Protein backbone atom coordinates (compact mmCIF):
# COMPACT_ATOMS: atom_id res chain seq x y z
CA UNK A 1 0.00 0.00 0.00
CA UNK A 2 1.48 3.31 -1.08
CA UNK A 3 0.57 6.85 -0.03
CA UNK A 4 -1.49 7.09 -3.24
CA UNK A 5 -3.55 4.04 -2.21
CA UNK A 6 -4.21 5.45 1.26
CA UNK A 7 -5.21 8.79 -0.27
CA UNK A 8 -7.62 7.14 -2.72
CA UNK A 9 -9.09 4.88 -0.01
CA UNK A 10 -9.64 7.48 2.70
CA UNK A 11 -10.45 10.27 0.21
CA UNK A 12 -13.26 8.16 -1.27
CA UNK A 13 -14.63 7.10 2.11
CA UNK A 14 -14.42 10.60 3.60
CA UNK A 15 -16.22 12.10 0.61
CA UNK A 16 -19.06 9.57 0.80
CA UNK A 17 -19.53 9.93 4.57
CA UNK A 18 -19.31 13.73 4.62
CA UNK A 19 -21.53 14.15 1.56
CA UNK A 20 -24.14 11.76 2.96
CA UNK A 21 -24.13 13.45 6.36
CA UNK A 22 -24.33 16.96 4.95
CA UNK A 23 -26.97 16.31 2.29
CA UNK A 24 -29.31 14.35 4.57
CA UNK A 25 -29.08 16.56 7.65
CA UNK A 26 -32.26 17.79 9.29
CA UNK A 27 -34.54 14.77 9.70
CA UNK A 28 -37.14 16.30 11.99
CA UNK A 29 -39.40 13.36 12.78
CA UNK A 30 -39.52 9.58 12.88
CA UNK A 31 -41.27 9.32 9.50
CA UNK A 32 -38.61 11.32 7.68
CA UNK A 33 -35.84 9.47 9.56
CA UNK A 34 -37.12 5.92 8.97
CA UNK A 35 -38.92 6.26 5.62
CA UNK A 36 -36.97 9.12 4.07
CA UNK A 37 -38.63 11.82 1.98
CA UNK A 38 -39.91 9.25 -0.53
CA UNK A 39 -38.54 11.26 -3.44
CA UNK A 40 -36.39 8.59 -5.11
CA UNK A 41 -36.65 8.11 -8.86
CA UNK A 42 -36.74 4.58 -10.27
CA UNK A 43 -33.04 4.35 -11.05
CA UNK A 44 -32.16 5.53 -7.54
CA UNK A 45 -34.48 2.87 -6.11
CA UNK A 46 -32.81 0.26 -8.32
CA UNK A 47 -29.30 1.36 -7.33
CA UNK A 48 -30.29 1.37 -3.67
CA UNK A 49 -31.73 -2.17 -3.93
CA UNK A 50 -28.58 -3.45 -5.63
CA UNK A 51 -26.24 -1.67 -3.22
CA UNK A 52 -28.11 -3.13 -0.25
CA UNK A 53 -27.80 -6.67 -1.58
CA UNK A 54 -24.14 -6.39 -2.62
CA UNK A 55 -22.04 -6.52 0.52
CA UNK A 56 -18.25 -6.74 0.80
CA UNK A 57 -18.63 -10.52 0.91
CA UNK A 58 -19.95 -10.36 -2.66
CA UNK A 59 -16.71 -8.84 -3.92
CA UNK A 60 -14.32 -10.76 -1.66
CA UNK A 61 -15.85 -14.20 -2.10
CA UNK A 62 -17.51 -14.33 -5.52
CA UNK A 63 -14.35 -14.11 -7.72
CA UNK A 64 -12.79 -16.82 -5.53
CA UNK A 65 -15.92 -18.91 -5.99
CA UNK A 66 -15.49 -18.69 -9.78
CA UNK A 67 -11.79 -19.57 -9.56
CA UNK A 68 -12.41 -22.72 -7.55
CA UNK A 69 -15.87 -23.85 -8.64
CA UNK A 70 -16.39 -22.14 -12.02
CA UNK A 71 -19.22 -19.75 -12.88
CA UNK A 72 -22.12 -22.01 -11.86
CA UNK A 73 -22.81 -19.80 -8.83
CA UNK A 74 -24.62 -17.51 -11.29
CA UNK A 75 -27.55 -19.96 -11.27
CA UNK A 76 -28.27 -18.84 -7.72
CA UNK A 77 -29.59 -15.58 -9.24
CA UNK A 78 -31.87 -17.09 -11.91
CA UNK A 79 -34.93 -16.85 -9.64
CA UNK A 80 -34.40 -13.15 -8.95
CA UNK A 81 -36.15 -11.66 -12.04
CA UNK A 82 -39.15 -13.91 -11.41
CA UNK A 83 -39.30 -12.74 -7.80
CA UNK A 84 -39.08 -9.09 -8.94
CA UNK A 85 -42.14 -9.53 -11.16
CA UNK A 86 -44.20 -11.31 -8.48
CA UNK A 87 -43.32 -8.68 -5.87
CA UNK A 88 -44.14 -5.82 -8.26
CA UNK A 89 -47.53 -7.32 -9.04
CA UNK A 90 -48.61 -8.40 -5.55
CA UNK A 91 -46.71 -6.96 -2.62
CA UNK A 92 -45.71 -3.42 -3.58
CA UNK A 93 -49.27 -2.18 -4.31
CA UNK A 94 -50.44 -3.50 -0.93
CA UNK A 95 -47.61 -1.78 0.96
CA UNK A 96 -48.39 1.48 -0.86
CA UNK A 97 -52.12 1.24 -0.26
CA UNK A 98 -51.65 0.69 3.47
CA UNK A 99 -48.87 3.35 3.68
CA UNK A 100 -46.83 1.10 5.96
CA UNK A 101 -43.45 1.87 7.56
CA UNK A 102 -42.52 -1.79 7.65
CA UNK A 103 -43.71 -4.93 5.84
CA UNK A 104 -44.78 -6.46 9.15
CA UNK A 105 -47.40 -3.76 9.81
CA UNK A 106 -49.46 -5.34 7.06
CA UNK A 107 -49.59 -8.61 9.00
CA UNK A 108 -51.45 -6.97 11.87
CA UNK A 109 -54.00 -5.58 9.42
CA UNK A 110 -54.45 -9.03 7.89
CA UNK A 111 -54.03 -11.25 11.00
CA UNK A 112 -53.26 -9.87 14.45
CA UNK A 113 -50.57 -8.32 16.61
CA UNK A 114 -48.89 -11.58 17.63
CA UNK A 115 -48.34 -12.64 13.99
CA UNK A 116 -46.89 -9.22 13.21
CA UNK A 117 -44.55 -9.44 16.19
CA UNK A 118 -43.52 -13.03 15.37
CA UNK A 119 -42.51 -12.02 11.81
CA UNK A 120 -40.77 -8.89 13.12
CA UNK A 121 -38.80 -10.90 15.69
CA UNK A 122 -37.78 -13.52 13.10
CA UNK A 123 -36.58 -10.65 10.91
CA UNK A 124 -34.69 -9.00 13.78
CA UNK A 125 -32.86 -12.25 14.59
CA UNK A 126 -32.04 -12.93 10.95
CA UNK A 127 -30.98 -9.40 10.09
CA UNK A 128 -29.23 -8.84 13.41
CA UNK A 129 -27.01 -11.87 12.67
CA UNK A 130 -26.54 -10.85 9.04
CA UNK A 131 -25.45 -7.30 9.83
CA UNK A 132 -22.83 -8.76 12.14
CA UNK A 133 -21.53 -10.93 9.28
CA UNK A 134 -21.73 -7.99 6.87
CA UNK A 135 -19.30 -6.19 9.12
CA UNK A 136 -17.28 -9.19 10.26
CA UNK A 137 -16.39 -10.49 6.78
CA UNK A 138 -14.45 -7.49 5.45
CA UNK A 139 -13.01 -6.78 8.91
CA UNK A 140 -11.57 -10.27 9.13
CA UNK A 141 -10.09 -10.35 5.65
CA UNK A 142 -8.72 -6.80 5.70
CA UNK A 143 -7.30 -7.12 9.20
CA UNK A 144 -5.64 -10.43 8.28
CA UNK A 145 -4.13 -9.19 5.04
CA UNK A 146 -2.85 -5.88 6.40
CA UNK A 147 -2.09 -7.06 9.90
CA UNK A 148 -4.58 -4.56 11.30
CA UNK A 149 -6.31 -5.20 14.59
CA UNK A 150 -9.74 -6.72 13.84
CA UNK A 151 -11.41 -4.59 16.52
CA UNK A 152 -9.91 -1.43 14.98
CA UNK A 153 -11.06 -2.44 11.47
CA UNK A 154 -14.55 -3.21 12.76
CA UNK A 155 -14.67 0.10 14.61
CA UNK A 156 -13.53 2.01 11.52
CA UNK A 157 -16.27 0.62 9.26
CA UNK A 158 -18.93 0.66 12.01
CA UNK A 159 -18.27 4.23 13.12
CA UNK A 160 -18.22 5.55 9.54
CA UNK A 161 -21.64 3.99 8.95
CA UNK A 162 -23.03 5.25 12.27
CA UNK A 163 -21.93 8.83 11.48
CA UNK A 164 -24.12 9.26 8.43
CA UNK A 165 -26.86 6.70 9.08
CA UNK A 166 -27.75 7.90 12.58
CA UNK A 167 -27.45 11.51 11.42
CA UNK A 168 -29.56 11.31 8.25
CA UNK A 169 -31.52 8.05 8.51
CA UNK A 170 -33.04 6.48 5.41
CA UNK A 171 -32.26 9.50 3.20
CA UNK A 172 -28.56 9.24 4.05
CA UNK A 173 -28.61 5.54 3.21
CA UNK A 174 -30.05 6.16 -0.28
CA UNK A 175 -27.81 9.16 -1.00
CA UNK A 176 -24.57 7.43 -0.07
CA UNK A 177 -25.51 4.22 -1.87
CA UNK A 178 -25.41 6.03 -5.22
CA UNK A 179 -21.76 7.00 -4.71
CA UNK A 180 -20.89 3.65 -3.17
CA UNK A 181 -22.36 1.82 -6.15
CA UNK A 182 -20.42 4.08 -8.56
CA UNK A 183 -17.18 3.25 -6.70
CA UNK A 184 -18.05 -0.47 -6.70
CA UNK A 185 -18.88 -0.70 -10.41
CA UNK A 186 -15.94 1.51 -11.45
CA UNK A 187 -13.45 -0.37 -9.28
CA UNK A 188 -14.57 -3.86 -10.31
CA UNK A 189 -14.69 -2.89 -14.00
CA UNK A 190 -11.14 -1.52 -13.78
CA UNK A 191 -9.96 -4.68 -11.99
CA UNK A 192 -11.41 -6.81 -14.78
CA UNK A 193 -9.75 -4.74 -17.52
CA UNK A 194 -6.36 -4.79 -15.76
CA UNK A 195 -6.63 -8.55 -15.06
CA UNK A 196 -7.08 -9.09 -18.79
CA UNK A 197 -4.23 -6.72 -19.70
CA UNK A 198 -1.87 -8.64 -17.40
CA UNK A 199 -2.30 -11.83 -19.45
CA UNK A 200 0.49 -12.75 -21.92
CA UNK A 201 0.43 -10.82 -25.21
CA UNK A 202 -0.38 -13.88 -27.30
CA UNK A 203 -3.49 -14.69 -25.22
CA UNK A 204 -6.46 -12.78 -26.63
CA UNK A 205 -9.88 -12.40 -24.99
CA UNK A 206 -11.20 -15.24 -27.18
CA UNK A 207 -8.26 -17.42 -26.10
CA UNK A 208 -8.98 -16.56 -22.46
CA UNK A 209 -12.60 -17.63 -22.81
CA UNK A 210 -11.60 -20.81 -24.64
CA UNK A 211 -8.94 -21.74 -22.05
CA UNK A 212 -11.40 -21.12 -19.18
CA UNK A 213 -14.05 -23.13 -21.02
CA UNK A 214 -11.76 -26.06 -21.75
CA UNK A 215 -10.72 -26.15 -18.09
CA UNK A 216 -14.33 -26.29 -16.89
CA UNK A 217 -14.77 -22.77 -15.51
CA UNK A 218 -17.65 -21.80 -17.84
CA UNK A 219 -20.06 -24.25 -16.22
CA UNK A 220 -22.77 -21.59 -16.17
CA UNK A 221 -25.72 -23.97 -16.34
CA UNK A 222 -25.67 -27.38 -14.65
CA UNK A 223 -28.76 -29.52 -15.02
CA UNK A 224 -28.08 -32.50 -12.73
CA UNK A 225 -30.59 -32.43 -9.88
CA UNK A 226 -29.59 -33.30 -6.35
CA UNK A 227 -31.12 -32.21 -3.05
CA UNK A 228 -27.62 -31.75 -1.68
CA UNK A 229 -26.25 -29.71 -4.63
CA UNK A 230 -26.46 -25.99 -3.88
CA UNK A 231 -25.98 -24.43 -7.28
CA UNK A 232 -27.75 -25.91 -10.29
CA UNK A 233 -30.51 -24.66 -12.56
CA UNK A 234 -33.24 -26.31 -10.46
CA UNK A 235 -32.16 -24.83 -7.14
CA UNK A 236 -31.66 -21.53 -8.99
CA UNK A 237 -35.13 -21.41 -10.49
CA UNK A 238 -37.05 -22.98 -7.59
CA UNK A 239 -35.36 -22.48 -4.23
CA UNK A 240 -33.77 -19.13 -5.14
CA UNK A 241 -37.12 -17.76 -6.29
CA UNK A 242 -38.49 -18.46 -2.80
CA UNK A 243 -35.37 -16.96 -1.20
CA UNK A 244 -35.57 -13.78 -3.30
CA UNK A 245 -39.33 -13.48 -2.88
CA UNK A 246 -38.77 -13.46 0.84
CA UNK A 247 -35.67 -11.26 0.76
CA UNK A 248 -37.07 -8.56 -1.52
CA UNK A 249 -40.73 -8.91 -0.55
CA UNK A 250 -40.59 -9.26 3.22
CA UNK A 251 -37.12 -8.24 4.42
CA UNK A 252 -37.40 -4.70 5.71
CA UNK A 253 -33.87 -3.82 4.55
CA UNK A 254 -35.13 -4.18 0.96
CA UNK A 255 -38.79 -3.18 1.46
CA UNK A 256 -37.63 0.16 2.89
CA UNK A 257 -35.50 0.76 -0.22
CA UNK A 258 -38.37 0.60 -2.68
CA UNK A 259 -40.88 2.23 -0.34
CA UNK A 260 -38.50 5.21 -0.52
CA UNK A 261 -39.57 5.63 -4.15
CA UNK A 262 -41.43 8.74 -5.25
CA UNK A 263 -44.46 6.70 -6.22
CA UNK A 264 -45.66 3.17 -6.81
CA UNK A 265 -44.49 3.57 -10.41
CA UNK A 266 -40.92 4.48 -9.41
CA UNK A 267 -40.77 1.60 -6.90
CA UNK A 268 -41.94 -0.93 -9.48
CA UNK A 269 -39.48 0.36 -12.06
CA UNK A 270 -36.69 0.12 -9.47
CA UNK A 271 -37.49 -3.56 -8.94
CA UNK A 272 -37.64 -4.13 -12.71
CA UNK A 273 -34.25 -2.39 -13.04
CA UNK A 274 -32.86 -4.86 -10.50
CA UNK A 275 -34.50 -7.79 -12.29
CA UNK A 276 -32.82 -6.79 -15.56
CA UNK A 277 -29.34 -5.97 -14.24
CA UNK A 278 -28.62 -8.30 -11.33
CA UNK A 279 -27.72 -11.44 -13.32
CA UNK A 280 -25.42 -9.53 -15.75
CA UNK A 281 -23.72 -7.85 -12.79
CA UNK A 282 -23.04 -11.18 -11.12
CA UNK A 283 -21.84 -12.54 -14.46
CA UNK A 284 -19.27 -9.74 -14.66
CA UNK A 285 -18.04 -10.36 -11.09
CA UNK A 286 -17.75 -14.10 -11.73
CA UNK A 287 -16.04 -13.45 -15.07
CA UNK A 288 -13.47 -11.28 -13.28
CA UNK A 289 -12.83 -14.39 -11.16
CA UNK A 290 -12.35 -16.39 -14.37
CA UNK A 291 -9.86 -13.77 -15.64
CA UNK A 292 -7.92 -14.07 -12.40
CA UNK A 293 -8.03 -17.88 -12.77
CA UNK A 294 -6.52 -17.62 -16.28
CA UNK A 295 -3.99 -15.07 -14.99
CA UNK A 296 -2.81 -17.61 -12.39
CA UNK A 297 -2.29 -20.16 -15.16
CA UNK A 298 0.59 -17.95 -16.32
CA UNK A 299 1.79 -16.56 -12.96
CA UNK A 300 2.48 -18.87 -10.04
CA UNK A 301 -0.02 -18.42 -7.20
CA UNK A 302 0.92 -19.07 -3.57
CA UNK A 303 0.15 -22.56 -2.27
CA UNK A 304 -2.13 -20.95 0.31
CA UNK A 305 -3.79 -17.59 -0.41
CA UNK A 306 -3.94 -16.31 3.17
CA UNK A 307 -0.30 -15.27 2.97
CA UNK A 308 -0.15 -13.83 6.48
CA UNK A 309 -1.15 -17.19 7.91
CA UNK A 310 1.27 -18.93 5.55
CA UNK A 311 4.10 -16.69 6.77
CA UNK A 312 3.19 -17.31 10.40
CA UNK A 313 3.04 -21.06 9.86
CA UNK A 314 6.57 -21.01 8.39
CA UNK A 315 7.76 -19.79 11.78
CA UNK A 316 6.21 -22.73 13.64
CA UNK A 317 7.62 -26.24 14.14
CA UNK A 318 5.87 -27.19 10.87
CA UNK A 319 7.92 -24.58 8.95
CA UNK A 320 10.19 -27.14 7.25
CA UNK A 321 7.22 -29.15 6.00
CA UNK A 322 5.45 -26.01 4.78
CA UNK A 323 8.54 -24.94 2.82
CA UNK A 324 8.83 -28.41 1.36
CA UNK A 325 5.15 -28.32 0.32
CA UNK A 326 5.66 -24.89 -1.28
CA UNK A 327 8.57 -26.24 -3.31
CA UNK A 328 6.56 -29.31 -4.40
CA UNK A 329 3.71 -27.02 -5.37
CA UNK A 330 5.97 -24.89 -7.57
CA UNK A 331 7.40 -28.01 -9.21
CA UNK A 332 3.91 -29.22 -10.08
CA UNK A 333 2.98 -25.73 -11.20
CA UNK A 334 5.89 -25.83 -13.70
CA UNK A 335 4.48 -29.08 -15.12
CA UNK A 336 1.02 -27.52 -15.26
CA UNK A 337 2.39 -24.46 -17.07
CA UNK A 338 3.80 -26.63 -19.86
CA UNK A 339 0.35 -28.20 -20.26
CA UNK A 340 -1.30 -24.76 -20.31
CA UNK A 341 1.13 -23.57 -23.01
CA UNK A 342 0.30 -26.65 -25.07
CA UNK A 343 -3.39 -25.97 -24.53
CA UNK A 344 -3.04 -22.38 -25.82
CA UNK A 345 -1.04 -23.63 -28.82
CA UNK A 346 -3.70 -26.26 -29.53
CA UNK A 347 -6.40 -23.56 -29.35
CA UNK A 348 -4.41 -21.33 -31.74
CA UNK A 349 -4.02 -24.23 -34.20
CA UNK A 350 -7.60 -25.37 -33.60
CA UNK A 351 -6.15 -28.85 -33.01
CA UNK A 352 -8.73 -30.86 -31.03
CA UNK A 353 -6.41 -33.79 -30.34
CA UNK A 354 -3.64 -31.53 -29.00
CA UNK A 355 -6.18 -29.69 -26.81
CA UNK A 356 -7.41 -32.97 -25.30
CA UNK A 357 -3.86 -34.17 -24.60
CA UNK A 358 -2.99 -30.83 -22.96
CA UNK A 359 -6.17 -30.97 -20.85
CA UNK A 360 -5.32 -34.46 -19.61
CA UNK A 361 -1.82 -33.31 -18.65
CA UNK A 362 -3.22 -30.20 -16.97
CA UNK A 363 -5.72 -32.23 -14.94
CA UNK A 364 -3.04 -34.63 -13.76
CA UNK A 365 -0.82 -31.76 -12.60
CA UNK A 366 -3.79 -29.94 -11.07
CA UNK A 367 -4.80 -33.01 -9.12
CA UNK A 368 -1.32 -33.18 -7.59
CA UNK A 369 -1.40 -29.44 -6.86
CA UNK A 370 -4.77 -29.81 -5.15
CA UNK A 371 -3.52 -32.60 -2.93
CA UNK A 372 -0.49 -30.46 -2.00
CA UNK A 373 -2.86 -27.57 -1.17
CA UNK A 374 -5.02 -29.86 0.95
CA UNK A 375 -1.95 -31.15 2.78
CA UNK A 376 -0.76 -27.56 3.32
CA UNK A 377 -4.11 -26.66 4.90
CA UNK A 378 -3.90 -29.67 7.16
CA UNK A 379 -0.35 -28.84 8.25
CA UNK A 380 -1.27 -25.20 8.92
CA UNK A 381 -4.38 -26.30 10.81
CA UNK A 382 -2.32 -28.66 12.94
CA UNK A 383 0.48 -26.15 13.58
CA UNK A 384 -1.97 -23.35 14.36
CA UNK A 385 -5.14 -24.97 15.73
CA UNK A 386 -7.16 -21.72 15.91
CA UNK A 387 -6.31 -20.68 12.35
CA UNK A 388 -8.97 -20.66 9.62
CA UNK A 389 -7.64 -22.75 6.76
CA UNK A 390 -10.21 -21.80 4.12
CA UNK A 391 -8.44 -19.34 1.80
CA UNK A 392 -11.00 -18.79 -0.97
CA UNK A 393 -11.99 -15.34 0.33
CA UNK A 394 -8.36 -14.18 0.07
CA UNK A 395 -7.69 -15.11 -3.57
CA UNK A 396 -9.08 -11.95 -5.18
CA UNK A 397 -7.70 -9.57 -2.57
CA UNK A 398 -4.27 -11.18 -2.91
CA UNK A 399 -4.41 -10.66 -6.66
CA UNK A 400 -5.36 -7.01 -6.15
CA UNK A 401 -2.55 -6.37 -3.69
CA UNK A 402 0.19 -8.10 -5.67
CA UNK A 403 -0.60 -7.28 -9.27
CA UNK A 404 -2.74 -4.14 -9.59
CA UNK A 405 -1.05 -0.73 -9.87
CA UNK A 406 -0.95 1.72 -6.96
CA UNK A 407 -4.01 3.89 -6.80
CA UNK A 408 -6.15 1.07 -8.18
CA UNK A 409 -5.33 -0.96 -5.03
CA UNK A 410 -6.71 1.92 -2.94
CA UNK A 411 -9.77 2.08 -5.18
CA UNK A 412 -10.42 -1.67 -4.82
CA UNK A 413 -10.15 -1.41 -1.05
CA UNK A 414 -12.63 1.48 -1.25
CA UNK A 415 -14.89 -0.94 -3.17
CA UNK A 416 -14.77 -3.42 -0.27
CA UNK A 417 -15.42 -0.72 2.33
CA UNK A 418 -18.19 0.89 0.24
CA UNK A 419 -19.92 -2.45 -0.25
CA UNK A 420 -19.74 -3.20 3.47
CA UNK A 421 -21.05 0.26 4.35
CA UNK A 422 -23.85 0.29 1.76
CA UNK A 423 -25.42 -2.95 2.94
CA UNK A 424 -24.74 -2.29 6.62
CA UNK A 425 -26.44 1.12 6.49
CA UNK A 426 -29.59 -0.35 4.91
CA UNK A 427 -29.63 -3.16 7.42
CA UNK A 428 -29.24 -0.82 10.39
CA UNK A 429 -31.99 1.42 9.06
CA UNK A 430 -34.29 -1.62 8.69
CA UNK A 431 -33.44 -2.99 12.13
CA UNK A 432 -34.17 0.41 13.67
CA UNK A 433 -37.47 0.73 11.77
CA UNK A 434 -38.71 -2.72 12.75
CA UNK A 435 -37.67 -2.59 16.39
CA UNK A 436 -39.10 0.95 16.65
CA UNK A 437 -42.36 0.67 14.69
CA UNK A 438 -43.29 -2.99 15.19
CA UNK A 439 -42.11 -3.50 18.77
CA UNK A 440 -41.21 -0.37 20.78
CA UNK A 441 -43.83 2.07 19.55
CA UNK A 442 -46.54 -0.54 18.95
CA UNK A 443 -46.19 -2.39 22.26
CA UNK A 444 -44.38 -0.16 24.76
CA UNK A 445 -44.70 3.55 23.87
CA UNK A 446 -47.63 4.14 21.52
CA UNK A 447 -48.22 7.73 22.67
CA UNK A 448 -44.71 9.20 22.71
CA UNK A 449 -44.11 12.65 21.21
CA UNK A 450 -42.56 13.15 17.77
CA UNK A 451 -39.27 14.26 19.33
CA UNK A 452 -39.20 11.20 21.60
CA UNK A 453 -39.92 8.91 18.65
CA UNK A 454 -37.08 10.41 16.62
CA UNK A 455 -34.69 10.14 19.56
CA UNK A 456 -35.71 6.51 20.25
CA UNK A 457 -35.21 5.64 16.54
CA UNK A 458 -31.67 7.02 16.64
CA UNK A 459 -30.88 5.24 19.89
CA UNK A 460 -32.17 1.93 18.50
CA UNK A 461 -30.12 2.36 15.33
CA UNK A 462 -26.98 3.05 17.36
CA UNK A 463 -27.71 0.05 19.58
CA UNK A 464 -28.02 -2.28 16.57
CA UNK A 465 -24.74 -0.90 15.21
CA UNK A 466 -23.03 -1.56 18.53
CA UNK A 467 -24.45 -5.12 18.63
CA UNK A 468 -23.13 -5.73 15.09
CA UNK A 469 -19.72 -4.31 15.98
CA UNK A 470 -19.49 -6.43 19.14
CA UNK A 471 -20.51 -9.53 17.18
CA UNK A 472 -17.94 -8.78 14.45
CA UNK A 473 -15.17 -8.14 16.95
CA UNK A 474 -15.85 -11.32 18.94
CA UNK A 475 -16.97 -13.70 16.17
CA UNK A 476 -14.70 -16.62 15.48
CA UNK A 477 -15.86 -18.28 12.28
CA UNK A 478 -14.83 -17.67 8.72
CA UNK A 479 -15.36 -20.73 6.59
CA UNK A 480 -16.82 -19.51 3.28
CA UNK A 481 -18.40 -16.21 4.20
CA UNK A 482 -20.84 -15.76 1.29
CA UNK A 483 -22.29 -19.17 1.99
CA UNK A 484 -22.79 -18.39 5.67
CA UNK A 485 -24.73 -15.21 4.81
CA UNK A 486 -27.06 -17.22 2.59
CA UNK A 487 -27.47 -20.00 5.17
CA UNK A 488 -28.59 -17.52 7.83
CA UNK A 489 -31.12 -16.07 5.38
CA UNK A 490 -32.43 -19.48 4.36
CA UNK A 491 -33.04 -20.45 8.00
CA UNK A 492 -35.70 -17.78 8.43
CA UNK A 493 -36.87 -16.57 5.02
CA UNK A 494 -39.05 -19.59 4.15
CA UNK A 495 -41.20 -19.16 7.25
CA UNK A 496 -41.50 -15.39 6.84
CA UNK A 497 -42.44 -15.77 3.18
CA UNK A 498 -44.98 -18.47 4.09
CA UNK A 499 -46.72 -16.06 6.50
CA UNK A 500 -46.93 -13.38 3.80
CA UNK A 501 -48.13 -15.80 1.10
CA UNK A 502 -50.90 -17.04 3.41
CA UNK A 503 -51.82 -13.40 4.02
CA UNK A 504 -52.01 -12.64 0.29
CA UNK A 505 -53.46 -15.80 -1.20
CA UNK A 506 -55.33 -17.77 1.48
CA UNK A 507 -57.99 -15.35 2.72
CA UNK A 508 -59.82 -18.00 4.76
CA UNK A 509 -56.82 -18.71 6.97
CA UNK A 510 -56.94 -16.77 10.21
CA UNK A 511 -54.30 -15.64 12.68
CA UNK A 512 -53.94 -18.61 15.06
CA UNK A 513 -53.57 -21.10 12.20
CA UNK A 514 -50.82 -19.11 10.50
CA UNK A 515 -49.06 -18.28 13.77
CA UNK A 516 -48.71 -21.90 14.94
CA UNK A 517 -47.88 -23.08 11.43
CA UNK A 518 -45.03 -20.57 11.35
CA UNK A 519 -43.75 -21.78 14.73
CA UNK A 520 -43.79 -25.41 13.51
CA UNK A 521 -42.20 -24.47 10.17
CA UNK A 522 -39.32 -22.66 11.87
CA UNK A 523 -38.76 -25.71 14.09
CA UNK A 524 -38.73 -27.98 11.01
CA UNK A 525 -36.18 -25.77 9.24
CA UNK A 526 -33.86 -25.87 12.24
CA UNK A 527 -34.32 -29.65 12.36
CA UNK A 528 -33.14 -29.84 8.73
CA UNK A 529 -30.18 -27.60 9.54
CA UNK A 530 -29.00 -29.56 12.56
CA UNK A 531 -29.78 -33.13 11.44
CA UNK A 532 -29.92 -33.16 7.61
CA UNK A 533 -27.38 -30.48 6.64
CA UNK A 534 -25.47 -32.80 4.29
CA UNK A 535 -28.58 -34.31 2.71
CA UNK A 536 -30.59 -31.15 1.99
CA UNK A 537 -28.89 -28.08 0.48
CA UNK A 538 -29.67 -25.00 2.55
CA UNK A 539 -31.37 -23.21 -0.36
CA UNK A 540 -34.22 -25.73 -0.09
CA UNK A 541 -34.95 -24.58 3.49
CA UNK A 542 -36.70 -21.63 1.84
CA UNK A 543 -39.15 -23.97 0.12
CA UNK A 544 -39.54 -26.27 3.12
CA UNK A 545 -40.36 -23.44 5.56
CA UNK A 546 -42.74 -21.75 3.15
CA UNK A 547 -44.61 -24.91 2.10
CA UNK A 548 -45.07 -26.04 5.72
CA UNK A 549 -46.61 -22.69 6.65
CA UNK A 550 -48.94 -22.78 3.64
CA UNK A 551 -50.12 -26.40 4.02
CA UNK A 552 -50.23 -26.58 7.81
CA UNK A 553 -52.15 -23.33 8.12
CA UNK A 554 -54.76 -24.72 5.70
CA UNK A 555 -55.02 -27.93 7.72
CA UNK A 556 -55.21 -26.14 11.08
CA UNK A 557 -57.83 -23.75 9.73
CA UNK A 558 -59.91 -26.65 8.35
CA UNK A 559 -59.63 -28.52 11.67
CA UNK A 560 -60.66 -25.46 13.61
CA UNK A 561 -63.67 -24.90 11.41
CA UNK A 562 -64.65 -28.57 11.60
CA UNK A 563 -64.33 -28.75 15.40
CA UNK A 564 -67.56 -28.13 17.34
CA UNK A 565 -67.51 -25.03 19.49
CA UNK A 566 -67.99 -26.19 23.08
CA UNK A 567 -71.02 -24.85 24.96
CA UNK A 568 -72.70 -23.61 21.82
CA UNK A 569 -74.71 -25.13 19.01
CA UNK A 570 -74.04 -22.21 16.75
CA UNK A 571 -72.74 -23.23 13.29
CA UNK A 572 -70.51 -20.13 13.20
CA UNK A 573 -66.78 -20.64 12.69
CA UNK A 574 -64.61 -20.44 15.77
CA UNK A 575 -62.17 -17.54 15.99
CA UNK A 576 -59.12 -19.40 14.68
Amino acid sequence: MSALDWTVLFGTLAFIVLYGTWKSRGARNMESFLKGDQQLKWWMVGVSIMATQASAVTFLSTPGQAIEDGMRFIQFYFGLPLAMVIISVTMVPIYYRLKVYTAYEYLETRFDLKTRILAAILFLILRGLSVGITLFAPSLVLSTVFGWNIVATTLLIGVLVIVYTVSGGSNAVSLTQRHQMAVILGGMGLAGVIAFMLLPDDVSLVDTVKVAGELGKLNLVTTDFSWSDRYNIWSGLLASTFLFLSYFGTDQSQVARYLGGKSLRESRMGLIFNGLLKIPMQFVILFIGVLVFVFYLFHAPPVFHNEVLLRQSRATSAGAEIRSLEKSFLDEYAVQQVAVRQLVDGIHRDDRAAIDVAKTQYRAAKQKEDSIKTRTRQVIGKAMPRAKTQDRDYIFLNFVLHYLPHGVIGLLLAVMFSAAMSSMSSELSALASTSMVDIYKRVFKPSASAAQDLFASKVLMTLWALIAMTFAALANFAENLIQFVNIVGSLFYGTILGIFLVAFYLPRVKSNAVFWSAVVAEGAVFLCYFYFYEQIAFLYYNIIGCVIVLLLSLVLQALAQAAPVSGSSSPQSPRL
Partner: protein
Amino acid sequence: MSDEQPPVFSSWRTWYILVLAVMIAQVVLYGLITRYFL
Protein backbone atom coordinates in the same frame (compact mmCIF):
# COMPACT_ATOMS: atom_id res chain seq x y z
CA MET B 1 -48.96 10.66 -16.46
CA SER B 2 -50.84 8.55 -13.97
CA ASP B 3 -49.05 6.87 -11.14
CA GLU B 4 -49.80 3.47 -12.57
CA GLN B 5 -48.66 4.25 -16.11
CA PRO B 6 -45.19 2.77 -16.70
CA PRO B 7 -42.55 4.61 -18.73
CA VAL B 8 -41.84 3.61 -22.34
CA PHE B 9 -44.45 0.84 -22.63
CA SER B 10 -48.18 1.25 -22.31
CA SER B 11 -48.62 -1.46 -19.71
CA TRP B 12 -46.73 -3.05 -16.83
CA ARG B 13 -47.36 -6.43 -18.36
CA THR B 14 -44.94 -5.57 -21.20
CA TRP B 15 -42.24 -4.71 -18.66
CA TYR B 16 -42.81 -7.95 -16.78
CA ILE B 17 -42.64 -9.98 -20.01
CA LEU B 18 -39.43 -8.14 -20.90
CA VAL B 19 -37.83 -8.97 -17.53
CA LEU B 20 -38.76 -12.64 -17.84
CA ALA B 21 -37.72 -12.77 -21.51
CA VAL B 22 -34.31 -11.28 -20.67
CA MET B 23 -33.92 -13.83 -17.85
CA ILE B 24 -34.85 -16.75 -20.14
CA ALA B 25 -32.53 -15.42 -22.87
CA GLN B 26 -29.66 -15.33 -20.38
CA VAL B 27 -30.37 -18.85 -19.15
CA VAL B 28 -30.45 -20.10 -22.76
CA LEU B 29 -27.27 -18.18 -23.66
CA TYR B 30 -25.43 -19.47 -20.59
CA GLY B 31 -26.71 -22.98 -21.34
CA LEU B 32 -25.34 -22.75 -24.88
CA ILE B 33 -21.96 -21.47 -23.61
CA THR B 34 -21.80 -24.36 -21.12
CA ARG B 35 -22.78 -26.90 -23.76
CA TYR B 36 -20.17 -25.55 -26.19
CA PHE B 37 -17.32 -25.89 -23.71
CA LEU B 38 -18.20 -28.84 -21.47
